[in-house]
């Protein structure tokens, strides 16, 4: 796509992660849609606040979200039941706050000998970010729009992850595929993964030979003061620049209108729909497990609408990983992340 943009031959329409929109919009490469959507029959006011946040930049709309996706807590209910962590109706007894969470984790480990939670350990920035935003005033962006990583909230979140690992509550040293395999094989109590696997995991349960028999999915664990979960959005954008050919734009908008009208179909995967009317509809709410993570949408964290967001995940993954494997102290890792992201943000 970048080569096409450089050559001046962009596609008429394409999907872009919402967190990347600032990068392209700030360079004048995306077509602003605020004034043209209504004419195409698309009601931008129907977008959920979370989904809309991913396609806005400097007060202008630059896309129509296809979904809102993010991290959830996938749970093996049979294991929770074995540890006595279920309610009378058989649903998991979800802990809230640090004390309850740690108490559940200890109880689970004692009862089953398995880790309470699984997560892939080479992509921790998303979980760390959620834990930062769960704390009162927690953020990764300063008032000046620059990265604000080396904070008390950041250190708390990192120390919490290290503590979980040290006390054997999370599966250690696993990549994405292995983390998923461990959960599906019934080797831990739960697994942090995205909305995109809800339908897939649900289908696994339908297989009589699958080790996972009783599946439940909840919002990302709330360990601190308020719910918050890492989120993202695949967004339809029109990379025709600020002065597009009217006929091409009209045809593109017609297609976009069709896609938006059928947004509910894409949500079958497990992603959240982006229109309030769809999210509140009966059909949508009858999708499997949908009610179990209904609070995901309001708790979705919209990453900073700054260009340095592009480098955020790779830099943070690396520095957090350095702290997790003991190559750096948590303080040093966050200080280094701050320096690197600032250097990236300020380089002209």
């Amino acid at each position, binding site marked *: 796509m970048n080569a096409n*943009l450089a050559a001046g031959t962009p596609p008429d329409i394409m999907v872009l992660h919402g967190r990347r929109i600032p990068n392209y919009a700030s360079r004048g*490469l995306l077509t602003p849609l605020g004034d043209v959507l209504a004419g195409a029959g698309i009601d931008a006011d129907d977008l959920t606040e979370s989904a809309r946040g991913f396609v806005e930049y400097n007060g202008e709309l630059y896309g129509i979200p296809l979904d809102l996706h993010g991290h959830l807590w996938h749970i093996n209910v049979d294991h929770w039941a074995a540890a006595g962590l279920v309610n009378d109706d058989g649903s998991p007894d979800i802990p809230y706050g640090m004390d309850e969470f740690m108490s559940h984790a200890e109880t689970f480990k004692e009862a089953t000998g398995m880790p309470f939670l699984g997560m892939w*350990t080479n992509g921790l920035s998303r979980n760390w970010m959620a834990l930062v935003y769960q704390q009162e005033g927690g953020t990764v962006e300063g008032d000046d729009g620059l990265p604000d990583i080396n904070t008390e909230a950041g250190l708390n979140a990192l120390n919490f992850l290290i503590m979980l690992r040290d006390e054997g509550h999370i599966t250690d040293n696993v990549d994405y595929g*292995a983390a998923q395999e461990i959960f599906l094989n019934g080797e831990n109590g739960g697994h942090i993964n995205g909305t995109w696997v809800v339908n897939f995991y649900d289908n696994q349960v339908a297989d009589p030979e699958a080790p996972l028999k009783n599946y439940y999915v909840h919002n990302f664990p709330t360990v601190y003061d308020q719910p918050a979960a890492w989120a993202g959005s695949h967004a339809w954008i029109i990379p025709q620049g600020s002065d597009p050919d009217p006929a091409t734009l009209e045809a593109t908008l017609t297609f976009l209108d069709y896609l938006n009208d059928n947004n509910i179909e894409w949500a079958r995967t497990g992603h959240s729909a982006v229109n309030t009317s769809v999210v509140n509809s009966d059909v949508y709410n009858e999708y499997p497990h949908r009610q179990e993570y209904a609070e995901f949408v309001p708790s979705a964290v919209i990453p900073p609408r700054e260009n340095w967001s592009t480098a955020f995940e790779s830099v943070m993954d*690396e*520095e957090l*990983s350095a702290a997790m494997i003991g190559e750096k102290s948590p303080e040093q890792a966050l200080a280094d992340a701050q320096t*690197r992201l600032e250097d990236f943000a300020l380089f002209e």
Partner: protein
Amino acid sequence: MNGLSLGRAVEGALNLLDVFSPVVEPYRRFHENLPPKAQQTVTAFVFILPFGILYAIFTILPIFQTFYISLHKWEIMGTNIRYIGLKNFERLLTRDTQFHQAFEQTILFVALTIPIIFVGLFFALMLNRPIKGIGIFRTIFYLPNIIAVTVIGLIWARVFASSDRGLINAFLENFNAGPIPFLDQGNLATLVVSFTTLWWTVGFSMLIFLAGLQDISQALYDAAEVDGANRRQQFRHITIPGLRRPFAFLCILQVIASFQIFGQVDVMTGGGPAGNTRTIVYNIFETSFLYFQVGYGTAMAVIMFAVLLVISLFQLALFRDQGVGS
């Protein structure tokens, strides 16, 4: 198509060449008026001209373009292009700790993968024997070299996976040992990537040495045998001197290839854990394609080019002193 119509087709095709006659005729007259020796030289140049033009456009020009881009802030989408002089180099050399770490890591990879040459020599010596089915063994040893790096990386990443999902760790589990965090600990991951590189590329070194060995005249060994030289003496005084050229060739190529390690790192570790296996080329890729800073990434490439140039010239001078290439 019968012979007659084929002849017509060829004649037709040749007639098409008449379109070049406005150029060919003056050239022919110019060529005929040249002294015989100059005629040969000019003809040679004309023959290499088509390749020369393509080489200039697709190889030489990009090299100069690289130097030009490195002096600019240049985004991959072709936006915000601005001349900034040596600022990219200043940032690189003075405060980009990630680049410094990647540079050190690359040097380490070069040092760790140099032994590939000697392993290749060992295999070549083993496979340079007149035994039955030797062709099959040679093929087997060379086979990894023709597999795509993506496949190689995926296979070995699975073998060395840190959890009990890895082949080695699953095996160790039977003995209540492990798991060893092969890809989750900096030093181990570096060794694993180096080993994978060795497995993948040793066949090439073997092949070059094998060709070198077969180039050494059997008469030399026969004469040494008559003079009473034992196997070790023959190896030291005939084989090793006879392999100087392939050795020099492989040394230069191996250092350049090791400096350019990318695929294995990309597939197996993604530069991790904690940036421990990030090499210069991987850093260039991240900077240019993930962070869009092509100008800055290009400055890294220029630094690497300069370092490789110096090392290669040094190696050439060293081998020339030892009589290779003279």
